[in-house]
C-alpha cells in the first residue's frame, strides 16, 4: 500500500522528462520578463546541460513557467487502515516511557491539534493501537508502516486532509493536496523525485502539528518568513537550484517585512501572501498586478486606468517601480534619476520588429526604478512626468509647511484642533493625488494636487492666525506688565511716604 505512491511518482517523473525539457526552455524565455528569476536566469542557463543530464529539470525554481504545470497531482491515497483504538492507546503508553526521545515525541503529539481531534499514532504509522505488545502492535501483520518517507508524507496527510467528508467538521480546506502538487516544491518532488523540497511536515511539523492561529506554530503568519528562510536562506541547500538566498534579508528591510516582523501586524504580507503557501511559486509577470492588488485595491484600480496597463508585453508593472522583496516607501525619488541615465534605442524598443519592450533586468537596482529609465528627457512623456512631479511636489510642500505651522502654533500653547481637521482634509487629497500617479494622467494628478494645496494653504492660514494671535497676546502682556509696574511704583511711592510719616510720629 505504501509503495504505490512512490511507484507512481517514479513513473510520472520518467514520463515527464521529455516534456520537462520543453518546459525548461519556456522557463528561461519567461525569465526575461520575470524579475524574481533574473538573478538565477544566467546561472540556470549555464548549468542547463548538466542539469538536464541529472534529471534536475527545473534548474531555477524561481524561473516560473508561464504554462500550467505539466504534472498533475497523483490520486489521493486512501487513509491508513487500522483497528480502532477505542479508549486505549498502547503506542503512547509504551513510547512515552521507553526513552527521552520517544517521550518527547509522545509529549509533542499530546499537545498537538491531532491529539485534540483524536488522530492517533496508527493514523499515520499504521499498526494496532490496542496492543501494548511491541510484537503485536508494531507487526507488519497489523499493518505497521514505520515513519512515512518524504515521498509518502504528502499522500499520508492528503489521505485525510484532501477528504471533504473528514475535514467538514473542522471547516478546513481540502485543496492543499492538489495545490501542493502544483507548487514548485510539489512539481520537483513529482518530476525529479527530489526529496530535498519542502513537504507537509517541514512547515507544519510532524508530531507537534499546531493550528495556523497558534502563535507557536511555525506557520503562524508572523513566523512564516523565518520558516521559509529556514531553507531558502541556506546557501548550501539552495546551491543545486541556483536561486538567490538573500530574499529574507531583503524582505526584512522592506515595508512589508518591517510591518510584519517589527510592528507584528499579522495583516502584513509574508512570503506566502505573494507566492502562495501550499501552491508556492513565484508570481508571474502576468499575475503581479493581481497579486499586489489583492491588498492594494485602490492602487490597482488606478493602475488599470493607466497607459502603462495597456502596454501588455512592455507594460511596467508594480514591481518595475517598487521592486519585489525590497518594496520601500514610495516617494518623489521614484520620478527621476539624479543624473540623466544613458539611453540606447534597444533600452525600450525591440529593434527587430519596432515594438516597445521592457527589460525587467534594468530595474533590478532600486536606484534605476525611475520613470526616466524608460522616458527620455526629450520625449513628450518626460515633460508630462515632470508636470506630475511638480504638481505633487507643490502639494507636498504646502502640506509639510502647513504641518510645521500647526506645530509652531501648538508649541505656543494654542489649540489647533480646527487647523488639524483642515490638514486631514489636505492629507486626504494629497494621498489621492499621490495614488493618482498610477493612472499616469497629468490632469487628474494636478487637479487633486491643486485641491490638496488649497486645503493645506487654508490649514496653514488658520495656523498662522493662531501664531499671530499668540504674538499679539505676548505684546498685550508686555503692555499689561508695564501698567502693573506703574501701579506698583505708585503704591511703593505712597507707602514710603506713609512709612516716613510713621517714623516721624
Amino acid at each position, binding site marked *: 500500500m505504501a509503495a504505490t505512491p512512490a511507484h507512481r511518482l517514479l513513473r510520472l517523473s520518467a514520463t515527464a522528462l521529455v516534456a520537462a525539457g520543453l518546459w525548461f526552455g519556456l522557463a528561461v524565455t519567461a525569465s526575461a520578463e520575470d524579475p524574481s528569476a533574473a538573478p538565477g536566469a544566467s546561472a540556470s542557463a549555464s548549468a542547463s546541460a548538466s542539469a538536464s543530464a541529472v534529471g534536475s529539470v527545473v534548474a531555477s525554481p524561481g524561473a516560473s513557467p508561464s504554462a500550467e504545470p505539466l504534472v498533475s497531482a497523483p490520486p489521493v491515497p486512501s487513509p491508513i487502515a487500522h483497528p480502532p483504538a477505542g479508549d486505549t492507546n498502547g503506542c503512547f503508553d509504551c513510547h512515552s516511557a521507553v526513552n527521552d526521545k520517544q517521550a518527547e515525541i509522545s509529549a509533542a503529539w499530546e499537545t498537538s491539534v491531532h491529539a485534540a481531534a483524536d488522530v492517533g499514532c496508527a493514523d499515520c504509522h499504521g499498526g494496532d493501537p490496542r496492543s501494548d505488545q511491541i510484537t503485536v502492535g508494531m507487526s507488519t501483520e497489523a499493518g505497521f508502516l514505520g515513519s512515512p518517507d518524504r515521498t509518502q508524507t504528502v499522500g499520508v496527510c492528503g489521505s485525510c486532509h484532501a477528504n471533504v467528508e473528514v475535514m467538514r467538521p473542522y471547516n478546513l480546506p481540502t485543496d492543499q493536496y492538489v495545490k501542493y502538487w502544483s507548487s514548485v516544491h510539489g512539481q520537483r518532488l513529482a518530476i525529479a523525485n527530489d526529496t530535498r523540497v519542502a513537504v507537509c511536515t517541514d512547515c507544519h511539523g510532524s508530531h507537534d502539528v499546531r493550528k495556523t492561529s497558534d502563535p507557536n506554530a511555525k506557520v503562524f503568519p508572523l513566523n512564516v518568513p523565518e520558516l521559509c528562510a529556514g531553507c531558502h536562506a541556506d546557501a548550501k541547500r539552495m546551491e543545486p537550484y541556483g536561486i538567490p538566498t538573500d530574499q529574507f534579508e531583503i524582505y526584512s528591510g522592506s515595508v512589508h517585512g518591517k510591518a510584519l516582523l517589527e510592528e507584528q501586524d499579522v*495583516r502584513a504580507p509574508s512570503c506566502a501572501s505573494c507566492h502562495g503557501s501550499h501552491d508556492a511559486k513565484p508570481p508571474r509577470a502576468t499575475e503581479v498586478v493581481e497579486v499586489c492588488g489583492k*491588498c*492594494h*485595491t*485602490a492602487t490597482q*484600480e488606478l493602475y488599470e486606468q493607466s497607459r502603462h496597463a495597456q502596454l501588455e508585453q512592455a507594460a511596467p508593472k508594480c514591481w518595475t517601480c517598487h521592486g519585489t522583496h525590497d518594496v520601500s516607501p514610495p516617494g518623489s525619488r521614484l520620478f527621476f534619476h539624479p543624473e540623466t541615465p544613458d539611453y540606447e534605442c534597444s533600452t525600450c524598443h525591440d529593434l527587430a520588429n519596432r515594438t516597445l519592450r521592457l527589460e525587467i533586468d534594468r530595474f533590478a537596482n532600486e536606484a534605476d526604478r525611475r520613470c526616466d529609465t524608460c522616458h527620455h528627457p526629450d520625449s513628450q512623456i518626460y515633460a508630462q512626468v515632470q508636470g506630475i512631479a511638480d504638481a505633487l511636489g507643490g502639494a507636498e510642500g504646502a502640506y509639510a509647511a502647513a504641518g510645521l505651522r500647526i506645530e509652531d502654533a501648538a508649541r505656543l500653547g494654542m489649540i489647533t*484642533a*480646527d487647523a488639524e*481637521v483642515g490638514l*486631514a*482634509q489636505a*492629507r*486626504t487629497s494629497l*494621498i*489621492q493625488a499621490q*495614488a493618482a500617479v498610477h493612472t499616469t494622467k497629468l490632469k487628474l494628478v494636478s487637479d487633486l494636487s491643486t485641491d490638496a494645496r488649497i486645503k493645506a494653504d487654508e490649514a496653514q492660514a488658520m495656523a498662522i492666525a493662531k501664531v499671530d494671535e499668540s504674538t499679539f497676546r505676548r505684546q498685550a502682556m508686555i503692555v*499689561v506688565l508695564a*501698567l*502693573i509696574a*506703574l*501701579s506698583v*511704583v*505708585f*503704591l511703593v*511711592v*505712597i507707602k514710603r*511716604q506713609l512709612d*516716613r*510719616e510713621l517714623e*516721624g510720629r
Partner: protein
Amino acid sequence: MEPAPVPAADATVTRHSRRRFLRWLGGLTVVSTIAMVTTPILGFLVPAKSGRTAAGGKTLVGTTADIPPGGGKVVAMGSTPAIVVNTEQGLRAYSAICTHLGCVVAWNDLIGAIQCPCHDGRFNPASGAVISGPPPAPLPPLNVSVEGDQIFLSEA
C-alpha cells in the same frame, strides 16, 4: 502731609510738581486697573464672534431629506467632520476621520459602504466596523437624534 525737610521756594515748586505727578500716576493706576479687569470680563460676556453660538452637546447637521435610505453624507460637527448614514437599522453616525492615516472618509453609493478614498479602507455603515482594507480600528460612533426632520449629532 509730607515731611518737608528744607523749606525753600524751590522745594515748594518740586513738591507741587511731584504731587501733580503722583496724582496723575494714581489716576493711571486706578484707570488701568479697572480697564485691565473689565476688558476681559466684558469681552468674555459678549457672544462669540464665530457662527457657533454654543459648542458641545447636540449639533444640527442637516435634515432627513439630505440622507435618503441607503445613502450617506459627510457633515461638519463643529469643526470636525462626521459621516451620517441612513441604514436599514436606522440613522447612524461616525467620526469621518479614517483610523488608518486620518483621511476624511466618504459614502460610496456603489458599494453601499463607507469608504476611505486614500487606501480603499471600507467600513460597515451599520456598525462602523472595518470590512476590508488597512484601517486598524472601527470608526468611532456618534449619537444621532432626530427632532422633526432635523438631524442632531453629539459625542457618544
